[in-house]
Structure formats: structure tokens, C-alpha cells
């Protein structure tokens, strides 16, 4: 299988006047085309930093990040909160990226319209973000990201601001959307169940500075199961316990 992203011994430190804060220590992994990878680790271990590096917002101190051999692939990054701009309508919000890249064409608008329809936001296209529920806002943020037509999606705890019910259904939605569009994705989460049910592999990081502890492939007998259904499959508990143990041990070492 072709890999879309390769990290080779990435290191990164933050610098403050008081001290140097190492955040990432020699992280290497591969992401295959169409794969869904979850990253789990103690809070403050450097997960967001890792995504920033992958998204080229920050530069690694050493090591290399390769994107399908090329220099540059379109990457979508969904942040923890939806950050819809309150003074723009839903449509204006989802077109923000295209507008800035001067790709705000007629076709793009048609595609936006279509995505709004697919994700049940059509009636709200001229509404302001404050008129939307948390789940709707998150979907709008996803459409904004998808419209840039990224090959790789980075999701930084995108559901953590939602209540549990909404969270389950939105993550189900987003899972389906990403699979349908055939995107590769990296999801950062604190939620072990979410990681297991959504991804093909779970990468477990140590406490700060982050190292890769293990990487566990999620193999379910029923490959077509939706995230919600996976939660009641027998393999689920096994994986849950295993990841829990790994994280627990990591904490004791730290």
C-alpha cells in the first residue's frame, strides 16, 4: 500500500526564556493512503504540536516529513473548536478557505451547496453560526475543511466540545464522510472508545516529550461496521483493555 505521509525521527522543542521544552522526541510512523489513524496520549504530551508539524505550521528541529514523495499535498486541519466566524453566514464561513486562496469559483460554490445538502445544513446556509447547534457547527467546520479538497485530514479532538450524545452521532457522521470521500485521516483524541471505533490503527504516545509507545492495528471481523456498532463487538473490549493498560503503564513510567 502506498503511504501518503511518512515521519522520520521528528524532534521538536519549544523555547521559552526560562527553559527549553522538548515536546516531540524522535517520532516516526507511516500513514497509508485511505487509512484512519488515531493518536492517543496523556494531555500535554505534544499531540497538537505533532499535527502542527504535519500541517507545516511549525518546522521540525530535526527529522523529515514526506508527503507521498511530493513536497506539497493539500492538508485539512480541523481544530478542537469549530471557530466559525460569527459575523459570517454558514455559506460564507465554509467558503473562507477558498476565498483566501482565490479559488472561490462557481464550481466551488456548487460543491459547497452540494455538501451542505448532503450534511443536512441546507436550510441553514444563510444562518449565522450562533443559530446552529453544536453538532451542526462541527459539521459546517468539516465542510469548510473538505471544500479545500485535502488528501489528508488532521482532526485535533474535534468532538471534545460536544455533549456525549451529539458526539457519538457527529463522530459517526464524520467517519462516514471521511470514508466516503476516501480521505486519509489522523485523529487526536483522549477518548479510547472513540479511537478504537473510528480508526484502523491507534498510535499511543508517551507523556511529554512524546515518543511512540506502541501502534496497535484495529482488526474487526466485521469490517463494514459503523463506529457505533463497533462499540458492541467482542473485539472492542479487548482493544480497550489493551490500550488502557498501555496508557496506564506509560503514566507509571513517567
Amino acid at each position: 500500500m502506498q503511504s501518503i505521509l511518512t515521519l522520520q525521527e521528528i524532534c521538536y522543542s519549544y523555547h521559552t526564556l526560562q527553559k527549553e521544552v522538548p515536546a516531540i522526541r524522535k517520532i516516526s510512523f507511516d500513514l497509508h493512503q485511505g487509512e484512519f489513524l488515531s493518536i492517543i496520549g496523556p494531555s500535554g504530551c505534544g499531540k497538537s504540536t505533532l499535527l502542527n508539524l504535519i500541517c507545516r505550521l511549525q518546522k521540525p528541529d530535526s527529522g523529515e516529513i514526506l508527503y507521498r514523495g511530493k513536497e506539497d499535498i493539500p492538508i485539512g486541519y480541523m481544530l478542537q473548536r469549530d471557530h466559525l466566524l460569527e459575523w459570517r453566514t454558514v455559506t460564507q464561513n465554509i467558503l473562507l478557505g477558498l476565498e483566501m486562496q482565490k479559488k472561490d469559483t462557481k464550481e466551488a460554490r456548487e460543491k459547497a451547496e452540494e455538501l451542505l445538502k448532503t450534511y443536512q445544513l441546507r436550510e441553514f446556509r444563510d444562518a449565522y453560526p450562533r443559530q446552529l447547534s453544536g453538532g451542526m457547527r462541527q459539521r459546517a467546520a468539516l465542510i469548510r475543511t473538505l471544500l479545500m479538497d485535502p488528501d489528508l485530514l488532521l482532526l485535533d479532538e474535534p468532538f471534545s466540545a460536544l455533549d456525549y450524545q451529539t458526539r457519538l452521532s457527529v463522530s459517526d457522521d464524520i467517519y462516514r464522510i471521511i470514508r466516503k470521500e476516501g480521505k486519509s485521516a489522523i485523529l487526536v483524541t483522549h477518548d479510547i472508545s472513540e479511537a478504537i471505533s473510528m480508526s484502523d490503527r491507534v498510535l499511543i504516545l508517551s507523556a511529554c516529550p512524546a515518543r511512540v509507545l506502541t501502534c496497535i492495528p484495529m482488526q474487526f471481523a466485521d469490517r463494514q461496521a459503523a463506529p457505533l456498532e463497533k462499540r458492541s463487538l467482542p473485539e472492542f473490549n479487548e482493544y480497550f483493555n489493551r490500550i488502557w493498560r498501555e496508557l496506564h503503564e506509560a503514566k507509571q513510567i513517567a
Partner: protein
Amino acid sequence: MKQNRSPDLPAMSKQEQYIYDHQRRKHRITVWKLAIFLAFLAQWELTTRFDLVNSFIFSSPSRILNTCIEMAENGQLFFHIGITLGETLVSFFLVTVISILASMLLWYFTMASEIAEPYLVILNSLPKSALAPLFIVWFGTGFKTIVIAGMSVAIFGSVINLYQYFRQTDPELIKLIYTLGGGRRHVLTKVLLPGSLPAILSGMKVNIGLCLVGVIIGEFLAARQGLGYLIIYGSQVFKLDWVLMAIFILCVIAMGLYKGVEYLEKHWGTGR
């Protein structure tokens, strides 16, 4: 205060009662506002009329009104009002534009802003009337000087406030712009400027008053026309009718300008 209209009218629902109470309260407030104003005018008129206080130095409402009519007839009044109003509006406009531009530049060039900070703080806290004599020497005694005096009172505070507001913008919003492929320029045009529109508008409400203050200071020192000149000249030749009339008109102008900007704020504030 719970009070039904009258016993023989049908009882109101809770909602109707609420609205009724609300309107009653508002009505009362309006009546009191007016009553205080009229009572003030009445006692002023009466005490001067019966020589309890000296109408030569305290003037009186009727004398002010007469002066007003007299000066309106020969056009002087509108001339002076026009001058002051024009100077205030020009300096207000310049303050608004310049402070938006300056705070954008300061945000864009972070280092420049850190260098400029102490200067801005000093200039902002300096009493601007101390600068007015300098302006006269540098720029003469015309329109330009007065406008600069007007601007000097408002501009530094306005720049500092707006720049601080820019700096407080959620860093995640800025990160969002970069993740969507935008640059620093887009952070300004897509996030900072539209996001600070409420701050800009409420700053404008303060600035319009400050500009008027600066313009009057300028006119005190340097002008041959305008309401500030009228006040100074009136006090020098002991025409206190002029002075008090000018002050009264200033009250009206100050309120009018404030309401005007408030209207703009409401007008532009809708749709968010």
C-alpha cells in the same frame, strides 16, 4: 409595581401586565427627565427675573433665547456652529481612519509596535492642551490647527485600544486562517478587522466626544471663529449671554453627534 389599570376593565394576563408595567416605568422616566430640565430652566428664569441672582453674570433662559434669535437672524450663529461642527467631524473622521490604519500596521509589524509602545503611552497620557500652543506656532491659527488639536485628544487612546483589541484575538482563530491556507494579510482582513467592528464602533462613540473637546480647546487658543471662540470672546467682553448660549449649543451638538454615531453603530451592528 403591580397596579392594574382600573377595576372595571378586564384583568390583564401576566404578559400584558408585564408589558404594561414596563411601559409605565419608561413613561415615568421620560417625564422625570423632562421635568428636571424644565424646573431648572424655570428656577433660572425666575431667580434672575426677581433679581435673586445677577442676570448680568448668570444670564437667563430668555436672554439666551433672545441672543440666539438675534444671532440666528444675522447668520452669525450658524456660521460659528458650522465651523465647530465641521472641524469636529473632520478630526473625528481622520482619527477613525488613522487609528484603524495605525493599529493594523502596529499589529503587522510586531517589533515596531513594541518600540512605539512607550511613546504612545506617554503621548496618550499627556494633557493635550499643553500641546495646543505648539500647534499654533507650527501650523498657524486656522482650520488645520483646530483639526489637529481635535485629533490629538482622541488619536493615541484610540490606537492603543484598537491595537490591544487586535492582540487579544483568540490565537486559535489566527491558526485557523493559516490552516485554511491564508497568510498574515488574511488574518487582518478576515479575522481582526471584521471581528473588531464592535470595538471600532464603540471607540467611535468615545472619540466623537473627545474630538469635540479638542476642537474647543483649539478654538479657545487659536481661533477667530467657532463656538470655542465665542465662549472666550464672550467672557473677555463680558457678554455672558454669548458664553452660556454657546455652552448650551455645545450640549446639543455633543448629544447630537453621540446619537449620530450610536445610530451608525446600530445600523452596522445589525446582521451579526
